[in-house]
């Protein structure tokens, strides 16, 4: 089963993402709020996909955390950001992520991921898709 790590400092948002992805049939790790914890958990749990918010609690931002994880694990990165600042976006895109999503994330529209409650669960992100 595809294992997913959610890095998001907003608890409610993190919970919703967790529920949506779980409902889609993914193996979702407990969400973390800081880059440091994300790196630690990722290295221990070796997820296939990391949903990464860019601005996080703590000192480390999502891009740095993603870089540290990537340095060790071949994860698929899905960045989520409400910030359109050129700097963040460019740095994130430079890491060649699997997706770059604007917040709020509309799960219903994710390519290859139909997670609506009336959709059949079990569709995974494992099929290769183009990056945004």
């Amino acid at each position, binding site marked *: 089963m595809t294992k997913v790590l959610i890095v998001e400092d907003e608890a409610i*948002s993190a*919970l919703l993402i967790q529920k949506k992805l779980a409902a889609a049939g993914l193996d979702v790790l407990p969400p973390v709020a800081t880059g440091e914890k994300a790196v630690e958990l990722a290295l221990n749990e070796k997820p296939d996909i990391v949903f990464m918010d860019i601005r996080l609690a703590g000192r480390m931002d999502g891009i740095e955390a993603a870089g540290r994880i990537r340095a060790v694990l071949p994860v698929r990165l899905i960045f989520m950001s*409400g*910030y359109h600042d050129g700097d963040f976006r460019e740095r994130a895109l430079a890491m060649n992520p699997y997706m770059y999503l604007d*917040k*709020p994330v*509309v799960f219903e*529209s994710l390519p290859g991921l*139909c997670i609506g409650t009336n*959709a059949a669960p079990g569709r995974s992100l494992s099929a290769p898709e183009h990056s945004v």
Partner: protein
Amino acid sequence: MTLPNSQPSLSSADLDRSIMRRALDTAINGYAVSDIHGSLVYVNHSFLTMWGYTPDDEVLGRSVFDFWVSAEECGPVVASVRNAGAWMGELEGRKKDGTTFVAQVSASLVHNDEGVPIAMLSSFLDVTESRRIRRELNATLLHSERMAGTMRSLFNASEAVLASVEFNSTARVLLLESLKLIQAEIGIISLFDGTEELSEILYDKADGSGGGVLTMPGQRLQTMLTGLCPGGSVWMSNDIGQTPLAALLPVGHRELRNLILAPLIMNSTIAGILGVANHDGGFDTIDTETISSFAGLASIALKSEQTQEALRDSVSHYRSLFENALVGIARVSLEGQLLDLNDSFACMLGYKDAHELMATQTRVSTYYVDIADRDHLLDLIRTQGFAPPREIRFRRKDGGDLWALYGASLERGAVNPSIAVYCIDITGRKQVEDSNKALVRELYHRTKNNMNVISAMIGLQLMQTPDPSQRPMMLDLQNRIAAMSLVHQMLYRSADLSRLDFAAYVRELVAQTVQSFASDCPDVHFELELEPFTMLMDFVVPCGLILNELLTNSIKHACHPGATPVVHISVRRLPDGTIGLDYRDNGPGYGNVDPDTATTMGLTAVRLLAVHQLQGTIRFGCASDDEASVAGVLPRGGASCSVRFQDDHYEERV
């Protein structure tokens, strides 16, 4: 007017009688004719005027002697005319009121056809005024030639020269220089300042003979001296022991007995006193006139010096203003070369001082970050002669930015026209503005985030709700929140923190709403006619909520298997400034619901948003009712809604 049948011919007798007589009557010169004994038989109008008579006065028959001051002068003239036939010269006339004047006279004897003398004809011209002017001119010339010499001897013969001048040290120097100029051998002259507590009068001569010191409060001396010359007249005494001045003379010193005081007049007030004094000989009226003349000259010289001084002061004053101004000031040639600038300006541009900048780069264009700013400025200068202050970005020496409030004007007065520019450093203000903008952006971002969290809460609730009938309500709520959140999201990204491109907003709102319904209704066809214009967020939010409700209704009602919902949205600004928002779909319309009175949350909100919040009007209808309906595109005549409002009841707040 009709002419007589026979026109009379002009004989020489007529000429004599009529025309010549008329010529005499109206001549500018005075004319008079007397009989051979000197009794007047004719005078013209100018004669009467010259002597001050009226035409009613009995002048004819009187002796010509009555009209001249002196019979001794007049007798020989009459004799000369009788004997020699003519006389020309000047005589002093006496007017009717007794006053006198100088007349230029030309007289001649008139003979009859037989050559017998019958009358004397004289012409007169009043030359009093021209004589006076010539005399005064001569006198002035003579006077000025004599003046220096007379003054010199007067001052040299005097044992003391006093002067009291209210002016500054320049005036003292000038007065001394004037005295030198006429080569007066004055060694020491003391001028006292009327405002000083104590003053001295030294009355020494250059050779050191005689002398003494008077010391007394300057103000008192000034008042007394001024009192001696009331109204600017010259005061003279050959025995000052009889005057209050005697009290000033120092005990034990040679007594000065003779004194002339003349006021120095400036701007019609006595500004000082000039005086000369001696012990022996006394002064006379010529001395008085001399010192008076010198005082007059000194007044003029002082006045002129004061003007010069004011000019020098003014120049140095402005130079000092220029150099010490906190505002940056510069002069630039029309070719864009810096001619002069102050230290403030140089420092703003990151240089130590004006000198360093002038030695480094004097091409003005190199300091502009955007050369278009300079072109625009030059355009204004050329067309209007000035450029009102604008915010312009310059490049500092260190490569950093200088934001400046920058204005310029053309200096036409000078021989070579140049541009005067002034500039205030507003970099600090710009930085504060930037940081304020960043704060506002952050606030928009957080607002948006909070709305997203609220939406996420509803989403979580939605997933746990066992009753499927609750789902649409929760989705509606999420969409309403999303419509508002989008405004903040777009403002956060926008350079303008108050206004949004409404067309772009509508486009994103549509995309967002469609996404939210993607699972229920994947194929909606949109026709968007979006005119680009910006609107304050205060108007965008209610418009967004209205559109969200209408879109939700359309998708809910128009979406069923086999049908492709079509939604037409048009936004535009009408010529009168009103904003028009027109919405149509091809669904079943409102059915048996009256949208004008419906109490459902959605339609109630739409009406309130349009009428209450936007202060506008709203009209619901069938799309086919609408004359602008695009037939064919909306074949079934679905629901339509038109909103009109003015976006002028809110003002920019950020």
